[in-house]
């Protein structure tokens, strides 16, 4: 006599499986969708608020494990999909769920390389990704995305972003193509950044990654005044001892209430291209220590590796060219995406409620 299984009993069993980052069960989080029971066969979709990084397989495995001991269930089929969530925000960019700024204290630390490679990893694992060149003085996205000859065009909804490697990007650098390098002055820089964000027909984007210019300045202020920024990532190198330089950038984000989602150490160690051995030229772990002191997540460190530079110059993201070497970016992207959805889950929406006036109140004026 076969045990009768129904939706309710399956859901209560799945209620034992937790999202390890939120420490809440996958049923009440709304991850379990399309549940179908066909005789002894159970199928459903796990809709996760993050790209489907390898670490997220655990939720599928746990689900299979708890269902395998339910009498009457002989077959379980779980598919997974990405469903990035976002708190409603009044002044956002239409169609864009999260805006992430990638900044650094000084130039040349590998900010653009980190931005492009993380973007490509998000995209590879199932998210819809856009990028903005916030660095209007020295745009590098056209080259790193392998689209330096692309041309911007427009439709009735706005500027059409360039598509490359399954991602969309916008770079004001493409507007000055051919002519002498454009000198953006204060108000023009402000406008350029605003247009790069707001006047673009983005379509649907889960993560819009903004490659910021180094340091602190106009572009940063324009960004935070123009759009709600989910958070910032700070790229630093071990040479920035005590993080004296990155700290300024950190304080700037802090003062403008942009959450710092994490710190990344770039060019942390030398990885020998011949034997693959790692050599910590600057002493490892300095950024990790500083991040801990500042109470911000430490997302990981990226070794100095010739391949990273070569593929960047060729305009091919590392995850597409050399997935093995790109593993370090996958790990960082996973931590970053997790940080975003955990914060998003915990965040209360900032709305101004309108209420009728109360009578007979007195104020200290």
């Amino acid at each position, binding site marked *: 006599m076969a045990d009768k299984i129904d939706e309710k009993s399956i859901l209560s069993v799945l209620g034992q499986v937790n999202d390890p980052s939120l420490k809440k069960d996958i049923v009440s989080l709304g991850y379990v969708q399309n549940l179908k029971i066909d005789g002894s066969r159970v199928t459903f979709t796990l809709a996760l608020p993050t790209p489907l990084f390898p670490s997220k397989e655990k939720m599928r495995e746990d689900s299979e494990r708890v269902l395998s001991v339910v009498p009457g269930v002989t077959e379980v089929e779980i598919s997974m999909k990405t469903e990035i969530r976002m708190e409603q925000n009044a002044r956002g960019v239409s169609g864009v769920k999260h805006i992430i700024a990638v900044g650094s204290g000084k130039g040349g630390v590998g900010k653009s390389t980190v931005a492009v490679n993380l973007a490509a990893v998000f995209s590879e694992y199932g998210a819809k990704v856009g990028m903005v060149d916030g660095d209007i003085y020295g745009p590098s996205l056209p080259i790193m995305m392998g689209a330096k000859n692309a041309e911007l065009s427009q439709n009735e909804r706005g500027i059409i972003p360039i598509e490359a490697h399954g991602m969309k990007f916008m770079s004001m650098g493409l507007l000055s193509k051919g002519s002498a390098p454009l000198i953006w002055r204060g108000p023009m820089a402000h406008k350029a950044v605003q247009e790069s964000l707001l006047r673009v027909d983005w379509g649907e984007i889960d993560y819009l990654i903004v490659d910021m210019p180094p340091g602190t300045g106009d572009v940063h202020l324009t960004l935070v*005044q123009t759009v*709600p920024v989910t958070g910032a990532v700070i790229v630093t190198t071990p040479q920035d001892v005590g993080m004296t330089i990155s700290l300024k950038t950190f304080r700037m984000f802090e003062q403008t209430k942009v959450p710092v989602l994490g710190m990344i150490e770039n060019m942390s160690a030398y990885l020998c291209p011949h034997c693959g051995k790692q050599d910590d030229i600057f002493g490892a772990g300095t950024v990790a220590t500083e991040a801990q002191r500042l109470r911000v997540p430490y997302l990981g460190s990226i070794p100095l590796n010739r391949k990273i530079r070569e593929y960047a110059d060729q305009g091919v993201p590392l995850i597409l060219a050399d997935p093995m070497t790109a593993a370090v970016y996958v790990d960082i992207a996973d931590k970053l995406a997790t940080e975003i959805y955990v914060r998003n889950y915990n965040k209360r929406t*900032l709305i*101004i409620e309108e*209420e*009728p006036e109360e009578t007979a109140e007195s*104020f200290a*004026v």
Partner: protein
Amino acid sequence: MITAETNPIAIKKKGNRSLEISWEDGHVSLYSFRYLRQNCSCAGCVEEWTGKKVLDKDVIPLDLLGLKAATTGNYALSFSFSDHHDTGIYHFDHLREICPCVICKE
């Protein structure tokens, strides 16, 4: 860092006279729009370099109203007042700092 003290969890515009902010640490601040107008820190109201107040608080009419309140990014509020002034950006930490309640005023 956004601390519980400067993280608003609810903002209420009560008619045109007052604004109420509930903070994550449990404190509730109630501001009259006149008081907010008097504490505007825009370049026109406060001297940029010295931080000296240019605005004379007493010239702000007693019946001043707050017509509109809006969020700026996710770190501040801005208002349109009935005297047509709307250039101030009120950071949440500044708003908490100027809470007019008796506890904070001590």
